[in-house]
């Protein structure tokens, strides 16, 4: 699941993450694009991001420590309000990072 391999089972991480996002946010899969803002475009609320972390834990089979997602977002978007810039692609990046720890 790390290095050159970017799949979970038989699916690429990107596809798995899209499905997780669609399921957690209750939106059609076809509305989740790599550049879709989870907050602006898909209506995500803060608790939805924790649910995504839970689902990623289930997928990668590891517990993600408290605050790890927030540290990741803070590092990626140091400016205040950067959470609105979180896209499906960003979530995929986080999932792969956690899988490879």
């Amino acid at each position, binding site marked *: 699941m790390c290095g050159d391999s970017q799949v979970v089972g038989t699916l690429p991480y990107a596809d798995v993450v899209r499905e997780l996002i669609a399921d957690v946010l209750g939106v059609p899969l076809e509305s989740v694009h790599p550049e879709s803002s989870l907050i602006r475009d898909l209506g995500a609320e803060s608790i939805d991001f924790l649910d995504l972390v839970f689902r990623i834990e289930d997928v990668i089979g590891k517990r993600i420590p*408290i605050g790890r997602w927030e540290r990741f977002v803070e590092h990626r978007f140091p400016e*205040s309000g950067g959470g609105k810039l979180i896209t499906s692609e960003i979530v995929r990046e986080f999932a792969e990072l956690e899988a490879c720890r």
Partner: protein
Amino acid sequence: MADERAARVARMAALAACGSPSGQLSLSVSHTEGSAAVLAGAAEHVFGVDLVRVERVTPRHSRAILTAGDAEAYGTLPSAYRDALAWALKEAAAKASGAAQHFFPGGVRLITDPLTGWLGVRLTDATPITLKAAWFVSGDLLCAVVSEAPPRGHAAQSFIYVRQASEAPVAAPPPAGAR
């Protein structure tokens, strides 16, 4: 979206309720499921609001955001909505800080005075800030407010709650806790 409409109505009502203040105003806004809550006050005043559906927050969510330092205060929260209140207080405090990603969840501590029953939150940073907590429950939604005392000479905060955008905004003083 319904949330944004409700937030717009609440913002306008909160600003109108503040009248013509002498200094700059700041707003804390939260919206969910078509409802919104807004707290307006002096810009140099630290405050925050969060709105959450009670059923949305489960014990698993609580376990993910609470630390050992929160345990005493968490144990004093009303059991019917303990998890939702813990979540909303931490969210409101993180928003109040102006650096939510930095403080949520580990940089916010739930605190209590067991003798008086006082409940608050502390932003644990180089210079800790302690904020008083208050909340109310409306139907299936819980609203939490955290704030420090308004600066001297400034008007009290203006709090507005909009259940649905089509309903009239409810203007109320900062809500009282269940004590």
